[in-house]
Structure formats: structure tokens, C-alpha cells
């Protein structure tokens, strides 16, 4: 009986996610939905040939990810994460205390405003310029490491908002391997490295990671014309 009523509930709820397999942003949404046990339909977009549905659901930016819940679209990954957390209230990813919540939002914004652009820049640059960006990223990683401190995850005992946003670091590690750079190492960042291992070993998170070999090739093809700096 319980199984049938559950089914009725999920039938009334239609959740779609428009994304791309290698997008750090759409993978965040997959993690959040899976953490909450929300069933959803995933639609893989071809960004050089965007579907009419995507253009209809995100006319302003025409970008993925877009979450469509019962026909209503939500765009921008951090906005979507908050929407998910407020709609499906179990397994919260944001703290309830307003100050702690403000801190979580601050760090997620830090990752998106500072780390992410730097990670893209490091993949696109060469030689001396690349060395400079690597140093910049390492400073940012140090900052994040000092925020993590002794915690298992940024969210505490389990994955939270900041950990999900920090999937950016997984993309950085893939880039460093694909392009022969040395940025996040266990020696330089013992605390962050420990967190990274826990993140990629987490049952839900690892299900949402792009397949490694494909991801490495993707990065090599996209950015690989630069010679690695050693």
C-alpha cells in the first residue's frame, strides 16, 4: 500500500534537468537531486544546437542547467540548489542558522567568482602566464582549506551546499591531469586533499561525476594545444 501511495506522489511531480555531461554546473544539480532522492528526467543538451525546450525554459541566458519542476523553470546553478533545498526539505544541504547559511552562500560565491574563472584561465594559458594563474589558484585553495579546517566536509558530517559548489575542484584535478599541470597536490594541500578523496568516494557524488577517461579526453581536446608548464 505504501509503495502505491509513493508512486502516486512521484507521478504528480515532474522534474526535468537540462544539462550537459561535462558541465560542472549541471552535475551540481544532479548531486542535489540524488541527495534528496528526487526522481528526475535528464535531458542532455547539445550546446551547438540548443533544443527549443531549453530556449523556451531559459530565454534570458539560453544556458544549462535548467531545472523544470512541474513545467516551471529555474535557472542558474546556485539558485537551483537553493530551490531544491527549499522544495524537498529532507537531507538539507544548507544550514538553518541564518549566519551559517550566509557563510555557505559566501563560500559558494567565492568558488564561482574566483576559483572557477581561474580554473578556466589556467587551462587556456601557457608558460609564464599559466604559472601565474597556478599560483593564484593555489592561494584560493589555501583559503578554502583554512575554511574547511577539521571538518569532514564543508557542510559538516555530510555533503552540503559548499561541497556541491566545490565540485569545481574535481574539474580542476581532471584538468591538471589532462594538461600536465601541478596545482592541487597532497603535499601542498593535505587537508583539502583529504576532503577531495572523501568527496569523490561519496556514494552519491561519485555517481554524478563525468566518466573519468571521457572527461580527460574532453579536456585534452578542448584545451590541449598549450604545452604543459613544469
Amino acid at each position: 500500500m505504501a509503495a502505491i501511495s509513493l508512486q502516486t506522489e512521484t507521478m504528480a511531480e515532474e522534474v526535468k534537468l537540462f544539462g550537459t555531461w561535462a558541465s560542472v554546473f549541471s552535475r551540481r544539480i544532479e548531486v542535489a537531486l540524488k541527495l534528496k532522492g528526487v526522481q528526475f528526467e535528464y535531458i542532455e543538451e547539445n550546446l551547438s544546437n540548443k533544443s527549443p525546450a531549453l530556449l523556451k525554459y531559459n530565454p534570458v541566458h539560453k544556458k544549462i542547467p535548467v531545472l523544470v519542476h512541474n513545467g516551471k523553470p529555474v535557472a542558474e546553478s546556485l539558485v537551483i540548489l537553493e530551490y531544491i533545498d527549499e522544495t524537498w526539505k529532507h537531507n538539507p544541504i544548507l544550514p538553518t542558522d541564518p549566519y551559517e547559511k550566509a557563510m555557505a552562500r559566501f563560500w559558494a560565491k567565492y568558488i564561482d567568482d574566483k576559483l572557477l574563472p581561474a580554473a578556466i584561465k589556467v587551462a587556456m594559458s601557457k608558460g609564464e602566464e599559466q604559472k601565474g594563474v597556478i599560483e593564484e589558484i593555489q592561494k584560493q585553495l589555501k583559503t578554502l582549506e583554512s575554511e574547511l579546517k577539521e571538518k569532514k566536509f564543508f557542510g559538516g558530517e555530510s555533503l552540503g551546499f559548499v561541497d556541491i559548489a566545490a565540485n569545481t575542484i574535481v574539474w580542476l584535478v581532471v584538468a591538471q591531469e589532462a594538461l600536465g599541470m601541478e596545482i592541487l597536490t597532497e603535499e601542498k594541500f593535505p587537508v583539502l586533499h583529504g576532503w577531495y578523496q572523501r568527496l569523490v568516494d561519496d556514494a552519491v557524488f561519485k555517481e554524478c561525476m563525468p566518466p573519468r577517461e571521457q572527461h580527460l579526453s574532453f579536456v585534452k581536446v578542448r584545451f590541449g594545444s598549450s604545452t604543459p608548464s613544469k
Partner: protein
Amino acid sequence: MADEIILLDFWPSMFGMKVRIALAEKGLKYEYRDEDLFNKGPLLLEMNPIHKKIPVLIHNGKPICESQIIVQYIDEVWKDKSPLLPSDPYHRAQARFWADYIDKKLHLLGQRLWRTKGEEQEANKEYIECLKLLEGELGDKPYFGGENFGFVDVNLMPYFSWLYVFEIAANFSIEAECPKLITWAKRCMEKESVSTSLPDRQKLYDFFLQLKKWHGIE
């Protein structure tokens, strides 16, 4: 125990204005401190060591940075008065989306209006298109928040205090292009929380002339 609220700010800052408006909407008493951005004080550097930027809200000794984060914090702590974000998650998401759009798109385009030489026509056009999109979102509502002044209104009003400056500097007017937004801005200015939080236009324009000099622009 009375709340101790300090706002580290810089009077022409659009980001600071958002926080001032939010604090005024909630009827909160606070200490306003204007920072010298060329000579940042020790409190600012201590409270925002990462970005060293204003605005910073210090609530009972604890700092909160980034204007949108501060406004949401204020809304969540003092939730019983003048709620800025709606209660429904979907409408909250829409409000956050538009606030993000304003901070990213409008802000960037606003800077291009006076910082780039030779691209003025293009910059003006894009800026107006951006405003028209926002005007479309406003529709026939009195405020972006609906019947009540809300989160998106708080985020957009500061740009209107600068719009006067941009219109003179970039030689264009939005009156004909976005009449609904002009009406909306006037309606917002009738609110004491808004009019007391935004700087005097002439003072802002004089500041802008200084700013151009610092950036080496004629």
C-alpha cells in the same frame, strides 16, 4: 540584548545602497561607517580579509559580506517585518535569478557605458535592452515583488540612482524606452527606506567626474 549592527560602506556604492535599503525596510538602527577605499581601515580588513571590500555588515561582532548575501541575511534574521523575499520557493528562485541578472549583466553593461571609448552606441543599446528585459519582468506590477517592495526592487533601485549619471555621461535617456521602469523608480523613491538610502544625484555626479579622472577617462 539589543542588536549591535555596523555597516561598513562607501556612500556611492550601489552594493552598499542595497544593504542600506534593506536595513531601512526592516526599521533597524545601525552604525554607518563610510570607508576610505584608498586607505582601508583595520576593521574592514579584519572583517572582510578575503575580498577587502564593502559593504560588510557586522551583526553582534560577526561579519557578513557580499551585498546579496547580506540582504538575504537581514531578511532571514528580521523576518517578521517587511519580508523582502516571497515565501514560495519558486518565486524566491525567480527573485534570486533576477537579482543575479542585475548584479552580473546590468552591472557589467553599466560599467561599459563610461569606461569604453568608441563603443558607446553599442553599450547604450545593450544597456537599454537589459533594462527592457527587466521592464518585461516587472510587467504591470507595482513592484518586482508584486504588491510589496521586495528583493529585486532592493537590488535594482541603486542602479537607478546611478542611471542619472550614466544618462548624462553616455548621452542617452531611458524615459522613452522604459517608461514603466521610470514610473517604478519614482514609486520606489516615495518610500522613505529608499529615498534616505540613496545619495543625492548631484553629489553622485560630482563623484563620477572624479572617478573618471582616476581612471584616466575624459
